[in-house]
């Protein structure tokens, strides 16, 4: 294992979170016996001129046991860079939208190109890509990182140290998150931010590594004694703020809230002490003290004797002082909207959350009332959390686990590769772009190929968009297969050929919509569906092996006398969304209006008409809301015409969007900007969009029908009848507006979606393939024997008959 750490500036005494982290990681990994090299520039630090080579280029060994390679930087076009930079910083924070570049593409490229530049480092990375097992890049923003991640490809590990700032919204930054093989985050909150900015492909390749905090031994011995408080802190309880006192850290909010607390409880002895550089922009209220910049020792004293630490900042990727306070056994109050601090506080139960000025003021009242033992309990909770999360040794164990011991992505399946190559081919009527069944078939083929089988997809009708994925069906293709997988929904011309096929075979049932739904709109199609249902009963005897993509579908197979049908769920891999969503749609839909989404074919069983009526009720609560119905509409379809009339009749033409047939980047944009997924569907065999919504953290409410409760499982918020339309609208509005309800639902969905990851579904598929061949031996034998006995029986009879 040979690791390279790539960072624009490197040195023992450099200030800055990422620089410190890099130094610690390099030193500690080297100490643990790993081969570590640091690849950096000749520029001394972030504060120096980025075009100057202060340090000599070349290789040097450190006493700590690792190697530093420095590469020269070159001149950069500073004027252009500064122009873009000031443009970027002018953006008000509220105007930033995930997936939308805050500046033009050209400006973004200038920004990335004219950051610190080191072509020599870039060339080295390109050429020596294979000489290292992994490259750890940090932090996310600089040229050597953005270009370097692209250069080393799947060996890139990015530790972004991400903040919610304008730079993070540049498209090139998104690309480096998509390209990196793994992502290391300092906190859950930071990962959360990355998911919000870059979408559902993030969690699958993320590791929460954390950051170590060095605390002197005195801290751990400090316990909770409040004896001997130093004179300058005076007597009585005080709250402590540690850090720079600028507006970006929300100091004005803190001081205003404290002033309000003072007006409510003028006799309280609770004080507020601020320590750190800078000058607050609002006057200090009574009972608050600014101690200015303090020494390390003074800081320790302040921490030891405070009642609690307050951290009102919203822009943290990891709060070191929070961990320090916890290590001193002190509870902390943090801003609810800062995920990096709020999530650990919630997880540790080590303090409080507050959001608006009102909430902060009432939090101070609560703090004033809380008795010491209760405070100590919270502090102790925090200490226990910090002891694990911020212990350098534990952090290094996590680095080792995520870097050194990480196994290759797709382990070869032992003993699965048959030789000579056995062919398992799939047969289905048609393959089309974006369709769930088609995606499933392609996934199965890739899995079979990875397992060493020869596998192809044969279809009757080819969609030009996926023409390279399949071949045209012929009868010979069936006969030449060693084994066949047949995807069945309604019977087609290929069905008889698969009935005739005598080798091992399996039927995958994707459900047939009951014809009743179509009766009113397309009676001729309803007849086809009735026939499909009827024909299914005839198929059971020909397929010894069958699976449904849900238990609901398997039950239908069992009802039609298929012997012991199994369940093979559809696999949904979030990594497929490692691309930028359509920026135009992202920009348009993130305008503060509520977006309600439903994804699905336009069909009477999906009940888009009910959804439109329910939405018209919803609009009374949220007049700006949009309803987006994604699906391929056939405009001559009577049901679609009906929907159009309904929208017109209810006066919803400005609120209901029908985007038509769309590409993946657009679909991703609709999911990314949706606030609610609302399904009124009355018949679903599986419903892939539910799982997709879960990956995009879109809360779901759905009508409880067919396979829907099974797919949602422990993440279901469903309704059992549709009579009370105002009630449904109220429910939808609650899910959209109540952050707690939404969070509960989304957390449950995050658990549920994991069940459909490829690595969960793949063993089920392989088990099915195993059964294919074990049962195949039987079926292979049986029909052959049967065929022989048939021929020996019938032929002589015929001959005799002829003679007679």
């Amino acid at each position: 294992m040979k690791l390279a750490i790539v960072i624009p500036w490197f040195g023992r005494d450099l200030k800055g979170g990422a620089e410190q982290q890099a130094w610690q990681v390099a030193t500690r990994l080297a100490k643990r016996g790993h081969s570590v090299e640091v690849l950096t520039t000749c520029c001394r630090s972030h504060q120096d001129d980025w075009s100057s080579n202060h340090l000599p280029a070349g290789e040097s060994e450190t006493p700590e046991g690792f190697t530093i390679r420095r590469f020269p930087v070159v001149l950069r076009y500073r004027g252009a860079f500064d122009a873009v930079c000031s443009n970027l910083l002018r953006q008000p924070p509220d105007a930033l939208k995930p997936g939308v570049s805050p500046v033009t593409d050209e400006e973004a490229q200038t920004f990335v190109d004219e950051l610190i530049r080191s072509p020599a480092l870039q060339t080295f990375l390109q050429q020596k890509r294979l000489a290292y097992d992994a490259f750890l890049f940090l932090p996310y923003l600089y040229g050597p990182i953005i270009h370097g991640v692209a250069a080393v490809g799947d060996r890139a590990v990015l530790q972004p140290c991400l903040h919610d700032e304008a730079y993070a919204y540049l498209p090139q930054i998104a690309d480096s998150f998509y390209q990196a093989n793994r992502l290391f985050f300092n906190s859950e909150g930071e990962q959360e931010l990355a998911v919000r900015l870059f979408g559902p492909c993030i969690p699958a390749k993320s590791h929460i590594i954390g950051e170590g905090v060095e605390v002197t031994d005195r801290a751990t011995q400090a316990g909770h004694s409040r004896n001997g408080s130093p004179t300058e802190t005076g007597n009585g309880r005080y709250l402590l703020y540690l850090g720079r006192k600028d507006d970006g850290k929300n100091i004005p909010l803190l001081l205003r809230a404290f002033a309000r607390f003072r007006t409510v409880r003028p006799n309280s002895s609770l004080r507020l002490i601020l320590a750190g550089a800078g000058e607050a922009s609002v006057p200090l209220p009574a009972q608050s003290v600014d101690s200015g910049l303090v020494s390390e020792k003074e800081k320790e004293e302040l921490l030891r004797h405070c009642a609690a630490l307050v951290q009102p900042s919203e822009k943290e990727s990891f709060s070191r002082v929070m961990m320090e306070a916890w290590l001193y056994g002190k509870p902390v109050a943090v801003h609810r909207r800062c995920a990096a601090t709020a999530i650990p506080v919630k997880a540790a139960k080590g303090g409080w959350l507050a959001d608006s000025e009102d909430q902060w003021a009432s939090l101070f009242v609560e703090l004033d009332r809380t008795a010491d033992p209760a405070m100590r309990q919270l502090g102790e909770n925090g200490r226990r959390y910090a002891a694990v999360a911020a212990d350098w040794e534990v952090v290094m164990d996590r680095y080792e686990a995520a870097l050194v011991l990480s196994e290759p992505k797709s382990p070869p399946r032992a003993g699965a590769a048959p030789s000579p190559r056995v062919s398992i081919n799939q047969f289905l009527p048609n393959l089309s772009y974006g369709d769930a069944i088609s995606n499933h078939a392609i996934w199965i083929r890739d899995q079979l190929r990875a397992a060493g089988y020869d596998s192809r997809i044969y279809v009757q009708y080819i969609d030009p968009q996926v023409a390279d994925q399949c071949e045209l069906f012929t009868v010979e293709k069936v006969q030449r297969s060693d084994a066949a997988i047949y995807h069945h929904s309604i019977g087609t011309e290929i069905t008889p050929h698969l009935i005739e096929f005598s080798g091992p075979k399996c039927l995958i049932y994707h459900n047939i919509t009951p014809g009743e739904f179509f009766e009113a709109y397309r009676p001729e199609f309803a007849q086809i569906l009735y026939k499909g249902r009827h024909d299914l009963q005839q198929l059971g005897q020909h397929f010894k092996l069958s699976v449904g993509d849900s238990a609901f579908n398997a039950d239908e197979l069992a009802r039609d006398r298929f012997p012991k049908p199994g369940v093979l769920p559809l696999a949904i891999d979030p990594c497929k969304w490692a691309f930028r969503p359509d920026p135009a749609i992202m920009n348009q839909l993130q305008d503060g209006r509520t977006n309600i989404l439903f994804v699905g074919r336009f069909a009477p069983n999906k009940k888009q008409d009910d959804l439109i009526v329910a939405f018209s009720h919803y609009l009374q609560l949220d007049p700006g809301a949009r309803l987006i119905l994604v699906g391929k509409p056939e405009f001559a379809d009577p049901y679609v015409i009906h929907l159009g009339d309904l929208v017109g009749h209810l006066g919803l033409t400005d609120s209901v969007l029908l985007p038509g047939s769309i590409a993946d980047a657009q679909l991703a944009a609709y999911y990314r900007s949706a606030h609610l997924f609302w399904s009124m569907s009355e018949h679903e065999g599986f419903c892939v969009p539910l799982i997709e919504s879960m990956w995009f953290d879109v809360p779901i409410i759905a009508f409880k029908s067919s396979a829907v409760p099974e797919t949602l499982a422990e993440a279901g918020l469903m309704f059992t009848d549709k009579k009370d339309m105002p009630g449904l609208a109220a429910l939808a509005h609650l899910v959209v507006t109540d952050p707690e309800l939404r969070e509960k639902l989304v957390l449950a969905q995050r658990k549920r979606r994991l069940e459909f990851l490829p690595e969960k579904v793949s063993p089920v598929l392989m088990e099915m393939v195993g059964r294919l061949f074990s049962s195949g031996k039987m079926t292979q034998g049986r029909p052959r024997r049967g065929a022989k006995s048939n021929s020996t029986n019938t032929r002589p009879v015929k001959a005799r008959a002829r003679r007679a």
Partner: protein
Amino acid sequence: MIETTVPEINVSVLMEQVRLKAASIQRIEAPKLGAVARLKRVDLPPLDLIPPQPPLLLPEPVPARKERILAMLDQAWKRTAVRKWIPKPLRVFFRNQEDYNRALLESVASLAKANAELANRVEQLTRCFDVEQAWLAQMHERASGHSKWMETAGPLLGSASVDLQLFREEAREQLNAAKLKLDKFAERQEGVEEIVRKLNSEMEGASNNSALGKSVEAIVGEVQTLLRERERMAERLSQLGDGNATLRADLQADLARVGEHLRNLQVVHDRNDSELSRVATSALALQRTIAALEERQVSEGAYFRMELSQQASLLRQWFASRGSKENQKLPAARKETPEDMPGRLDAFYVSFEDRFRGPRKEIKKRVEFYLPVIRKARAGRPEAPVLDVGCGRGEWLELLKDHKLEASGVDINSAMLAQCRERGLKVAQGDAIAHLRALPEHSLGAVTGFHIIEHLALEILMDLLAETIRVLVPGGVAIFESPNCKNLVVGATNFNIDPTHRNPVFPETAQFMLSIHGFEDVQLKYLAPVEANRFPDKDPQSAVLNELLYGPQDFAVIGNKPSSS
């Protein structure tokens, strides 16, 4: 109504919240819309030219009193008849006319009343008729008004059209006049120009004129006063500048910024410059290297490739023999007899082809001729692809690919195939006959072979045709191109350039062969006649000579598989 499987969500609390919220929502009834597309009713615009007909207020019908009158009369009758069954002597006492009379009177009275009512109704009807009549009169008046309007409008329109006509004529005249004026003006302009020229020459002549000198002096004086004014302004400006030192500082800062910007620009410029010169020098060097390489390639390439392919075939053989006979050792290279080494001429043939066949582009241009044939046979669809036997460097395959036609090739020469694969063409290595034998019936839309049949022995050629007709789909097409030995230069000399040629195939013989294998509509196409050095076409002998010496150098035989079979 609401169910949840998320344990953290409290359903009863949620239901209560929903109930509270839902109370403020007004229920909207979904309209019942028919499923099938409904025709929208078209409302014609109202026609309100005719005034609405006034309502006809018909009075209620007069109640008929006939029954009552009859009943009364009947009663009167009865009363009069009462007397009949009273004994005669008593009759005198009963003779009483009073009731009868009263009934009679009453009936008469009711008749009178009915009469009065009828009269009343008649009066009302008359009134209704009056109203109707008034409306009709109004209508009539309107109609007459319309007709009057028409009457007055008719002549007006007529006169207007006349006016229009007049106006048009007048406009035309005016236009003509304007044109004339313009012409005149143009003439006059020439005169003016002449005057200007004269004036100019006079001015030159009058340069030392004293009057002019004076005026020049005056002008100089004016200029001097202007200069003095300017000096005063400058003074005032400097005063202003002294009073405002910060302004100057700002200027300096601006200057510094501009300087920084210039430096930035200089950096960019320098970087671009150095990169440009670097690129230029490296391009030059590259060009030189390429030229040198090309030279060397011509001399050495063929040799090296041959060496390589020999080594490769040796290795192949060694691997093959190791597969069958485990214990055998690597055969020594020098012991190999040339006959044992398939493909050892591959490298040679590639360099040969590069030297003699002609540039790729030209070949591609030449084979474009066959695209319509392929299109007509509807070959090149995914279910009826084209197979090119002896595909060589793949010019034809590339052309098909360019036109989005599905095609693959087969060739025995590995070096050529490597070239094809580089271009992303679908090719397989192997013997053409063996390759065709492995294909199912009706699986190809077209089989093509360019300059291949002259390499084959007769038996093999017959096999090729038999396999071709088998694998073609009904209606599929076979195309074979070969040197035309009817051109004497080709037949006697050029044919022998390629040492792997066996014997020329005579065009009509090829045609015959295809026919006997069951091809339909077999045609011969003669291609690529020599254009240069022809004898003058005038005399018949030179025509014969032209045909023999400069005639088509290639021919193609094209046959279709019958679509009925």
